[in-house]
């Protein structure tokens, strides 16, 4: 017998000015999900079930940008994506372009378990979700006041926001980073993609 272990993340590139209370909130969510995963592993639940369970928990918390509170495209819509891989059998499933599926990771799991394919996207993935009877929710479930505000900031700054969440109180920190990226200050090197300033990518 081996020993169980678990690691989780909620995104990288954290706003350096994230207020202390928001940091504590993030840690609280992470701790809760970590303990849920550890309890399942202690109970001998297979690893592939544990990662699905934990990611579902993380998706359901609006603090991070997957599932509820998902980030928005330049059109103001949600396009979520997820994948799962079972290393023992080297099986995998993935989905992209979801706008109504409450827990994308579970649809990825169904692609792995119930379809002959590895990856379904957009209309095909949504159709598969309905065939499989997964939980569907209104678009408003994903679009929170905070991410609408974030999209507005991103558009005003003419940039793509890297993977961090900015609190409602103190959103000026986001604006300062985005503006710095455009002006070519040291923060600009942080906001790069494919070797170019990230600001060139939006709007297309």
């Amino acid at each position: 017998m081996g020993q169980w272990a678990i690691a989780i993340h909620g995104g990288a590139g954290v706003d350096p000015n994230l207020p202390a209370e928001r940091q504590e909130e993030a840690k609280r969510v992470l701790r809760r999900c970590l303990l849920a995963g550890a309890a399942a592993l202690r109970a001998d639940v297979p690893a592939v079930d544990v990662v699905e369970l934990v990611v579902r928990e993380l998706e359901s918390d609006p603090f991070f940008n997957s599932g509820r509170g998902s980030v928005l495209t330049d059109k103001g819509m949600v396009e979520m994506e997820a994948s799962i891989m079972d290393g023992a059998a080297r099986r995998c499933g993935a989905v992209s372009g979801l706008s109504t599926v409450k827990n994308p990771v579970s649809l990825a799991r169904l692609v792995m378990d119930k379809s002959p394919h590895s990856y379904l996207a957009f209309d095909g993935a949504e159709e598969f979700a309905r065939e499989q009877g997964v939980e569907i929710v209104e678009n408003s479930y994903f679009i929170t006041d905070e991410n609408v505000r974030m999209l507005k900031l991103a558009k005003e700054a003419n940039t793509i926001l890297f993977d961090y969440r900015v609190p409602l109180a103190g959103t000026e920190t986001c604006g300062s980073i985005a503006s710095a990226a455009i002006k070519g200050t040291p923060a600009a090197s942080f906001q790069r993609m494919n070797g170019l300033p990230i600001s060139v990518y939006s709007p297309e």
Partner: protein
Amino acid sequence: TVGCAAVDRHRRCAAATSTGGLMNKKAGRIGDSPLIGAGTYACRSCAVSCTGEGEAIIRATLARDVAAMMEYRGLRLQEAVDLSVKERLDEGFAGVIAVSGEGEVAYGFNTNGMFRACMTEDGFAEVGIWE
């Protein structure tokens, strides 16, 4: 982005990643999270989930790179994570969490922070954001 990597007592590794992507991304943009080998990978050696600048993670096939470092170079999990983050990302910014089939946990990032937590059966536990 959120993700989880786990190994159970039967040494079965698994990983999952889920994301909304980048705020203000172009409609139709695919990131690293759903791409097996880029943002997510698992095999008998390890399980890996990535987060950060998707385009850089895709170029680096970052998750698979960690596994390859272990399989072909015989590195330990943390060494493989460190080398992949330092050597494979070019100018990209990303974070990685991973577990090995031996019950180890590891993480690495070259961003200013990464929301993360990990725990092992022998009692190690950590929840953190910054370096």
